[in-house]
């Protein structure tokens, strides 16, 4: 592929949990280079509790993350503001109550080509509300393995059972990134998310789409708005320079990717023991 050359786009990944806040600011990487995840530390980041009015300025740690020990309080709405290079990116998120993980199970299911280990994560859902969305994340020995956004459409009596395909039984045929082997520690986290965040995560897993913008932008000379095609953007040539061989005039827009999520995280773990699972 002869990829187009476009300017790097800022990426903000911000979480506020019951344990504190953590924000990373990075930039996109060209397709023909490896992602380095180099943290940008020249931003000013504030976190504001809309209920109490308290504002916290996050500071960088040794890894380049912006952190704060401020704990998210259920029911409070928080505003994250990231100022950098003449632009301010803002997002809000409301802290919801944590879910309870009821069970984490594996079962072997026969597919046409092989048996596949299906992971089923069961957790609670508030049956009195509709439209609840969740982000189920799976880690293999502490490393990111898979994620799946889910809504309460599939809830039954206040319980959601989310299934995800994982590794094949014939491990010689499995790709390294999908492989689970005997003894692997599989950790599952469930986080309540907004519908917009759900749409964003769905879009990221859909080829060719960026999803909705989760940040608004105020730049030095232009009031930003929610951009189309998946990133917040505002047109402002004063704060963004284009490379000479850029192919897209819209690249002049100031854009930002990522999310701000104020939400409690619930986790549970299971050891991958293939011979012990039903269907082996």
């Amino acid at each position, binding site marked *: *592929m002869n*990829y*187009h050359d*476009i300017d790097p*786009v800022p*990426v903000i*990944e911000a979480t506020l949990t019951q344990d504190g806040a953590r924000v990373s600011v*990075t*930039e*996109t*990487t*060209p*397709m*023909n*280079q*490896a*992602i380095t995840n180099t943290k940008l530390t020249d931003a000013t980041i504030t976190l504001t509790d809309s209920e109490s009015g308290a504002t916290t300025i996050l500071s960088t740690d040794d890894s380049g993350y912006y952190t704060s020990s401020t704990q998210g309080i259920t029911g409070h709405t928080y505003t994250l503001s990231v100022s950098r290079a003449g632009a301010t990116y803002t997002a809000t998120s409301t802290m919801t109550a944590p879910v309870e993980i009821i069970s984490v*199970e594996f079962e072997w299911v*026969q*597919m*046409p*080509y*092989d048996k596949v280990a*299906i992971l*089923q994560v*069961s957790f609670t859902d508030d049956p009195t509300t*509709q*439209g609840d969305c969740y982000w189920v994340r799976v880690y293999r020995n502490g*490393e*990111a393995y898979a*994620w799946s956004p889910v*809504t*309460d*459409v*599939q*809830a039954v009596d206040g319980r959601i*059972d989310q*299934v995800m395909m994982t590794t094949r039984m014939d491990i010689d045929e499995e790709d390294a*990134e999908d492989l689970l082997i005997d003894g692997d520690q599989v950790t599952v986290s469930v986080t309540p998310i907004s519908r917009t965040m759900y*749409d*964003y995560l*769905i*879009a*990221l897993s*859909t*080829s*060719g*789409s*960026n*999803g909705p913008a989760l940040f608004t932008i105020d730049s030095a000379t232009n009031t930003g708005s929610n951009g*189309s*095609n*998946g990133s917040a953007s505002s047109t402002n040539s004063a704060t963004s320079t284009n490379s000479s061989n850029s*192919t*897209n005039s*819209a*690249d002049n*827009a100031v854009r930002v*990717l*990522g999310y701000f999520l104020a939400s409690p995280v619930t986790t549970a773990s299971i050891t991958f023991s293939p011979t012990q699972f039903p269907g082996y």
Partner: protein
Amino acid sequence: MERYTLIEKVRVACITLFFCGAMNFGWAEYAPTHFAVPADNDAVTTNIINMGATSNSASVTVKTEAATEETFQVESVDSLGARTLGEVLVTGQAARQRVQATRLGAENLDISKLIETPKLLGENDIIKSMTLMAGVRSEGDGAGGFEVRGGNASQNLIVLDGMTLYNPSHVMGIFSTFNDAAISRATLYKGPIPTNFGGATSAVLDASLASGDTESYHGAATVGLLSAKANVEGPIVRDKLSFAVTARRSYVDMFLKMVPKYRGTVMNFYDVTAKVDYRPSARDRVDLSVVRSYDHMAITDLMGLHWGNFGTSLNWSHTNGESWRFLTTGAYSEYTTNALMTMMRSDQAMTEFIRDASLNERVIFTPSENHTVEVGARTQLLRVKSGEFQVNDTHEIELRSGWQNALWLSYDGNLNERFTLSAGVRLSLFSVLTGDSFQRFEAVDEALPDMSGATYFNAEPRFGLKYNLSEMHNLKIGIGSSTQNTHAIRSSATTFPFDRYALTSATVKPERSIQYSAGYVGMTANEKFDWSAEVYYRDMRNIYDFTDGSTMFSRVNLESIILGGRGRSYGLELMARKNIGRLTGWVSYTLSHTQSKIPGINDNRWYNATNDRRHDVSFVAMYHLSDRWDFSASWIYLSGQPLTAPDVKYELDGHTCYYYSQRNGYKTPSTHRLDVSATYTRHPWKRFTSELSFGLINAYYHLSPSIVYFEDDAESPTGTRAVQRSMYGLLPSVSYTLKF
């Protein structure tokens, strides 16, 4: 004894020549009558005034029942063994007919030639073969639809004996549901479509099932690697009532059951057609047609995908005197899909349907040989379930209905020796039907869509003018406007059985297109060669697409996840054919550019449409070596298809994500492929013909792109890679057919 096949247009009727039994005639334009010429039959001898046969061609003059004489060009096929379905030729395919046709872009498909093109897994597929013609293109390897002049497959109207077929494809599109044994006639309208057709903003494929022979029984059976099929036809009441039935079923799943690992895998399809043809008098003809196709793909106790068409139509043709014809059609068709999945404690299902009931009346007045006036009316009830989701205990559904009516008036005739005019207008009226009987919406946490009523009126002018430079050369221009009220919203670049369909509503407007075209057609004096060149420009309004990031499952309220915009396409089509001799075939080239502009997508800028292909080349050759051996080959080249590929990547929560700066900003590698086939014909017994066919798809093993996607690659220095999947490797096939 020689066999002859009619290859020229019959002015008074659409007649297809068969070579068994006696001669009979009919006038129904939409349903050709079988026409048999056994030279030793006295009855025929009295009707054939002159028959001058040579080894390869002959002319036949026939006195029809209306006491007029018609002269047909016929071509000797081979010695008489039995009537073979491959000899079913559609009238009007001759070079002279192509040159003389008034309507620009109208192609009477030469089915006998189309099915001589190389077979895919032993199956003749008219739709696949049709894509070898100029201006007609396959959606892609493994896709079932065809695209015409910048339109996508869902913007085509496919009509079979008056019934509309939606997405007629098997195996996710690898085969069409058109069993070649069932089809007798087909016409593709790429340019201005006749006023009696509506509901398509791209093209119309108008086909007819073959009627049964009224004199004797015939049949055929074919066994291939993938499927088997059979057909039988014959008289119920001699000269009055006949039947024709075809059936086809795949049996891949039978082989799969032999492999323990695949024992639970189900993968089959079938299709059945039946036609009963009744001729109560010389002036009347009534036929009843039924079509059923069904696909079943499943993994036992885990998931299932089912989809299929059902359609039926009743056609009555009545001739009153020399000048009046009345064609009445009542039709019903239904397209349904059903997807199920059960995994541990999760049960999910999605169903959809389109139901279409219509009544159509055409009155054709021919005051003189050179002038025809048609008036007509159509009323049609559409009921579309865009989605019904059942997820465990949760039920969601969106169902809408519409009433579509149309009136039309058209004139076709010669203004003088030089000019021929085809002009008309279709007035269409679409009303959104409201109330509990016609609408239903249930959803969880979704805003109620606008279910209010609305009525849309559209005038659709259709115009064509031909100027004869000489008997062998002419110029044509055409302008045609049309509207469409069923909108397929597609998640992928190609038609998928589970595409969702939106019906025109208070929010979704009727899709409109207008096409301007001009062309030149010419041929040699002996009709051995003919050629054509056409240019077109098409403007499309109210085309719909998913919003960025939305998929068919995002919301049951379809209108909340789609956006409407514009499209435009322009192009040049060149085609040259060799019609006579041992070696026949054609070469076609299409240069085209298709773009879309939908507010909310691609920063509101024009972008190359997903079906944009700049260059499309086809070479088709058929060689008749002897009475026993026939060979064919086709080579296609398609330049790359627009692709939305990432420009940069980033990481969230340890996962690689991609950022796309523009829609369809890249192109896939080009597609090219050589397909070849050979057929060995013999006559093992009297009245029996057998054919052993060998085929090879992708003969030089070029892996053309079918899907391109991006994924992590731990072994790559960049950590990611672009992956291209191909539909076809080297695909050999063999099939055996026995006919009587």
